[in-house]
């Protein structure tokens, strides 16, 4: 069976990516003997946060799991590996190596940190025959996650302490992430990225001449808004982006959502070539609060019940607080997806 790749993406630092990962690992440990591989596009499992200095959740790995990690991360890990191979990927933390855990312990997970190199590593892990590979995210970075088959999105008070605003934004983000696939039709043109006025002009010219324009790269927020401003000239056109991450990266989430809504209402179809399956959203009431009098951070929390309720109401996928509820819910979604995979 093909390896299922699950990405855990966050909306910010400290939104609970690693805690979500650990809750899934606990369920896998209890569960039906799935073989597992782990990697990260960031730097996870450190004792203390690089910015706030507050304690961070550690990643505990058990014998048998495959991991793709940087050599330097291993220096700070108590888990011991049997090295299988070098992955051919260099990071600021040194070479990425693939190994099998032979002694359980804490692991500092730092792996391939861009899309191309993540693909290289995922292919190697698949060749070693694992059932599930989990890719831990970094900050709010999302681009490499296009290589995952499905995503879990972690959000919380660290992204925004105002629950109604966070809920609204989470809804927008989930909507964008689940942008439907769209077939090209009629005459097809394609452009790379649209990052300045010249790029926009070239794109617009092609739009006028074609039925479908495939945008392979990214687009800036102002330029996306310019398409909406001229939507009357583009009625009936299909705009096909490479994947939903490219839309998320266009700019501020709610603005992008609003612009996409305007385009749809204006009769322009927007879709993606490669869809992403959003399995669940996890929420985290924790946030690091800056203490102006001491110049450091302390842990603080928003109301966890209100947070879970509000986000659940605003997103169209299941939502969990893995600290309060455990990982069964997220893992259940993952297994259901695997069955249909």
């Amino acid at each position: 069976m093909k390896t299922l790749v699950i990405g855990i993406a966050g909306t910010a630092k400290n939104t609970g990516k690693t805690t979500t990962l650990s809750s899934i690992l606990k369920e896998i440990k209890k569960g039906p003997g799935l073989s597992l591989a782990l990697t990260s596009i960031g730097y996870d499992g450190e004792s203390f946060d690089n910015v706030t200095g507050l304690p961070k959740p550690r990643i505990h790995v058990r014998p048998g799991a495959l991991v793709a990690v940087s050599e330097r991360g291993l220096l700070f890990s108590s888990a011991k590996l049997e090295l299988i191979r070098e992955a051919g990927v260099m990071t600021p933390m040194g070479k990425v190596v693939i190994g099998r855990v032979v002694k359980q312990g804490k692991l500092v997970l730092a792996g391939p940190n861009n899309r191309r190199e993540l693909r290289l590593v995922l292919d190697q892990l698949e060749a070693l025959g694992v059932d599930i590979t989990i890719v831990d995210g970094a900050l709010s970075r999302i681009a490499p996650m296009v290589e995952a088959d499905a995503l879990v999105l972690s959000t919380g008070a660290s992204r925004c302490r105002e629950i109604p605003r966070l809920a609204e934004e989470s809804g927008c983000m989930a909507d964008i992430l689940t942008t439907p696939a769209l077939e090209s039709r009629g005459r097809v043109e394609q452009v790379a990225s649209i990052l300045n006025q010249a790029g926009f002009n070239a794109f617009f010219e092609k739009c006028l001449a074609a039925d479908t324009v495939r945008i392979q790269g990214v687009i800036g927020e102002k330029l996306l808004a310019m398409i909406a401003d001229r939507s009357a000239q583009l009625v009936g056109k299909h705009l096909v982006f490479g994947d939903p991450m490219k839309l998320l990266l266009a700019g501020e989430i709610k603005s992008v959502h609003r612009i996409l809504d305007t385009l749809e209402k204006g009769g322009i179809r927007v879709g993606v070539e490669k869809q992403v399956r959003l399995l669940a959203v996890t929420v985290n009431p924790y946030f690091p609060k800056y203490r102006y009098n001491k110049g450091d951070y302390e842990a603080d929390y928003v109301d966890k019940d209100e947070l879970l309720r509000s986000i659940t109401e605003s997103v169209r996928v299941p939502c969990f607080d893995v600290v309060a509820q455990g990982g069964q819910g997220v893992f259940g979604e993952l297994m259901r997806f695997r069955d249909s995979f």
Partner: protein
Amino acid sequence: MAKKILLAPVDPVHDIGLKMVNRGLREAGYDTVLLPPDLSTEEIIQAIIDEKADTAVLSRTLGYGVANLLARFVDLADAAGIREKVRIAIGGMAVRPELAQELGFDASFGPGSTVEETIAFVEGKEFIKDTNLSRKQARDMTEGYSYKVKHGRIGELLEKTTDMILAWTEGKTSPGVERAILRDELWDVNKWRGGQPTTGFFSEYAGLCDEIVRNYYEKGELHPKTRRFTDKDVEKLRAHVERSRVDLQTPSIQHTLKKPIIFNQYGTGCPYMDIAHIKASEAYGADGVVHFDPSWGARTEGFFDGFLTHQEDGTVITPDNLMHICESLEKGTLWQVRAHRGLNTPETVVLAGKLGAHLTKINICYGSLGAGTEPARLTVDGVASIRYAAKYKLPFDVVTNEELCGVPAYKAFAGMLIVAHLGAALGGRSILQPLFCYSPEVMISGQMEDNYVDFNAAKITALRSIMDAPIWPGAPIGFLTQDEDRVQSSTTTALHTGLAAMLGVDAISIASSDEAYSGGPITVPSKVDTLRSAAESFRFFGQSRMELGRNAVQWSEEIVSGIESVLEQVVEKGDFVQALYDGILGNREDGAYPGRNGLNTVTQK
């Protein structure tokens, strides 16, 4: 074809670092494009595409919220497809590999990065640091000194005093000397390192120790304020040292000078914590470290054994403790194990010599008058210690800490010169260590009412006019000028460092910025404070020199004549030990009290 590199400050203002990298890359023949500051993420990515760059190097002064900005840049570049062909690095003062990894960059260039590192990255090669560039060589500060006495009369007096001491100690011994002989002759350090039994040594050794130490060897009882490290502790310590070494560089902090070399002390009680402190000191440029042992160690006959931590100040001297500390040191770090004041003085020198120390510390006069050891005992032990220091090729400093008790500099210096001259006569290499601080003498007499410069300069000048020997003021410099404010404390350290550098001394010891007021173990940040402040002082003054003021010249002359007068009295007394008892080298009024530890323990061989 030369690779094309685009350099872009992701910053509204700062781009000086990139300009320097740009210059280096151009000189190395690369085709570069340097973008101006204050461009948007989209504009920079478009420029990378338009310029068909192979590599992009960004820089950013990190601040609040910058991580998200950079993360978006990386994501946008990834989603735009340019990371398939273009490798992107980030540089900046707060950039570390962990952060660059988290943000998604291919490489990071933090403080101290070189153009060579950037070139290696551009070429896709692994950068191998030239460790020779950052590796210090342990330097012998006594090299080139003749120990000739330049002052005629003082030279004659020192000759007589040396003869007097050697004659007096001839045929005498003490438990401390006997333990040193055992440690020297029967304790095979190589066997011990190999874990082989040294039972023959211990059976004789225990009988020469105080009850508390004897109980350890005979009944296995540890000192009540110590505990043995567990195997797990040792494993963690080794891992800590190994991790510390991954990125450790040992920078030179003297800027364009070669001296003074900088010493930092350690002695928290816990060798593990000491080692962490030492690694921090090395990383911030300390050239050497000094071992401080507990005060009860100086009053107790004999050493314990094993890898022990101590719940109070001062790290217990045991072979295991010294070995673990020695193993943690970088090759170029000078290591001093002090032996100057107590009942274990000669054995400390032997242990230090066998376990790889570079330096020790011996002063009969201070140990007898300010540190509680009985003068006759420390005279016998001191002579033996100097002989061992010569045997193990350990230069030793002669510290005049009795100045801190209130003994005037000229008296303390007379004692220091006696020991230094004795050292030279016995084949040893001594280092003069005058206090370089706000001593009780000047508080009373007023030589520092206006400034801290003239009297300190006078002391160095006086010593230099008498003997051709290295000078290592301390210990630490600026003592008693520092208060509980870390900025104040660092500033005064920097100023004393500058003065010492301008006077051309060979070494200095600096305190941490919380040393006098820590109320417990000193902290690593406060060590870093003063090492950084010393480095800034070196940078500020460079090779500039000072001229002695009128007061400095006058006080220097007064110190020299004071020393001469003290030595005349010692020679007139005809008995060095009695001279110590009689207060010639510092009396009760000065604050010097002949010690009582080891009373009546000197015997004929």
